[in-house]
């Protein structure tokens, strides 16, 4: 039983870490909280649904499509909406409300275009493995591998490539990055696109396990915020830690308590935790 909870927690945590990474990247480079991140995840699930189930392509093709579509949407948002608003708004909250507006926009467009019915996709792999006295469906291992590879690719991107260095520099200090000759506009757009792409990966991957419907964005957004609060906003290791911790907490909670009390206890413990450590485990002071 304990083994099962731990394994479930790890698998869930890896996918949650992906979501947290996307949100933390946007926060790091643009200092705004992207309320629409959950809705982008939802678009990822729908893209996967259409490419994989309706058109019948291979799941990996669906995954790539989902990343591509979300990245394009992310780039468009950054270029036409956020860049304009961040340029001249007197108060910083305007960008946050803009992200709320985009979230509502995506969610309601999805409701209109895709309808309200919940959808599901066929599983990719059949079969269950019996390891360490636990039952792990083969599909879950597949999800775990994709999530871990995405995280590893993202980390390599941030550490080793020029773009990654530019993004990290942008997160630290925007003006000095400009002085260093980095094309901040292009890099911001790329950063937002990468974050949206991460949401797309998560969407594709979780579409296999959970129902696909237009309202799934809000719950994911709230979970993503909780992960950021636990791990610290704007810090990449913090996002990964936050994601895994939330995954484990959720798994333990559902295993021991079950039902709606799980998240109540999680939120209550997060509030208590934050009273001792307001910036999360690895966060820098902000405000």
């Amino acid at each position, binding site marked *: 039983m304990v083994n099962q909870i731990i394994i479930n927690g790890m698998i869930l945590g890896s996918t949650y870490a992906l979501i947290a990474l996307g949100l933390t990247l946007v926060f790091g480079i643009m200092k705004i909280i992207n309320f629409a991140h959950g809705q982008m995840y939802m678009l990822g699930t729908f893209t996967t649904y259409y490419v994989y189930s309706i058109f019948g392509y291979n799941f990996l093709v669906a995954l790539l499509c989902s990343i591509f579509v979300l990245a394009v949407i992310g780039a468009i948002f950054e270029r036409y909406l956020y860049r304009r608003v961040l340029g001249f708004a007197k108060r910083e909250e305007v960008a946050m409300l803009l992200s709320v507006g985009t979230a509502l926009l995506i969610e309601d467009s999805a409701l209109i275009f895709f309808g309200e019915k919940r959808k599901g996709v066929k599983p990719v792999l059949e079969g269950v493995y019996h390891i360490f006295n636990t039952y792990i469906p083969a599909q879950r291992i597949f999800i775990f591998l994709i999530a871990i590879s995405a995280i590893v690719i993202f980390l390599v991107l941030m550490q080793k490539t020029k773009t990654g260095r530019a993004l990290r520099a942008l997160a630290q200090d925007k003006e000095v990055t400009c002085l260093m000759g980095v094309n901040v506009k292009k890099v911001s757009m790329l950063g937002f696109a990468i974050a949206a792409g991460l949401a797309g990966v998560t969407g594709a991957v979780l579409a296999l396990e959970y129902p696909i419907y237009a309202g799934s964005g809000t719950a994911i957004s709230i979970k993503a915020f909780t992960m950021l*609060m636990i791990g610290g906003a704007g810090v990449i290791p913090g996002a990964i830690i936050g994601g895994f911790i939330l995954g484990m907490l959720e798994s333990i909670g559902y295993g021991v308590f079950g039902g709606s009390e799980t998240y*109540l206890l999680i939120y209550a413990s997060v509030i208590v935790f934050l009273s001792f450590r307001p910036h999360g485990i690895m966060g820098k002071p*902000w405000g």
Partner: protein
Amino acid sequence: MSSDKFLHKDGLLKLKDNKLIIIIGAIYFVAVPLFCRNSPYFLSVIINYSILSCISLGVWLTFSIGRINIGQAAFVGIGGYTTAILITKLGMSFWISFLLSGVIAAFFSLLLGFVLLRLKGIYFSMITLTLTASINLVFLNTDFITQGANGIMNIPRPGAVNIGNFTIIPSFRTENYYILFYYLVSIILLVCFICIWRLYNSRIGWIFRALRQNETLAQSIGINIIKYRIMAYTICGFLGGIGGSLFVVYIQNIFPDSFKVVDSINYMLYCFLGGLDYIFGPILGSFLLTICFELLRTIQKYQNLIYAIIIICLMLWLPNGIMSIKLPKKIKLLLNKK
């Protein structure tokens, strides 16, 4: 920010010799009852936006100390459930429950404020968002008080207030209760507005402005920032509580997710639309967005989508709110503004 702006910001609302006040007062207390007495729809729109304005005034107050508060729906819910439980289970009259809901919501915001207000910036926003979601779960899971997912229904409307044989406030359980509700919420809105206006233009209001600009600096000149930010948050909770109480007797039921995250975001939006630097902002914002939402009712399917597009357009082109638009000179002279 130039201090000049703060001095003239509410010049439009100076209580002496200003025609605008008289016009608004006349419309509110004479014209509307006269013409709309028999159309519950118009009255219900006004009642709706008035209660939303009260709640948004609370959110505005937390904006004025520099915090982005997305947790107001939690206190509206607490106030609402308090009233519902007191009226249905303990049989109290609405008028006492109304005040008690405000007090209890203020009490909870006082307690939570000690913990939550330590966080700043986006952490505060995120935790208040989580607070809204958690309070919904609390209501869902405490079956023994709140009846859980079934909610509390058939809440009776307020009764009369009598002193001896003399009726001060007529009973709401009659046919034309809409007009009575209209008067009730309008008067409450007026009282709240005057109180907040008085508060913001007093010494405490200037302390709030100082907190908004730079909390550390304010602390360094000797302001007790903990006391004042908790004060602001408590007043915000109180306004949320009485708003919830009014909603509950108006709609006559309450469920765990009657007031959720999207409602919190709406309250914030009303403040934004009206203009965060003006006390009249949240009232104007809730008025305009409520009207806008009603007008869109005919295109039911696209209602939310157009609402979202309007929000985005507002952020792109009118980020400082509607009241930041400068009136042309002729209209200024007409309204007697200096």
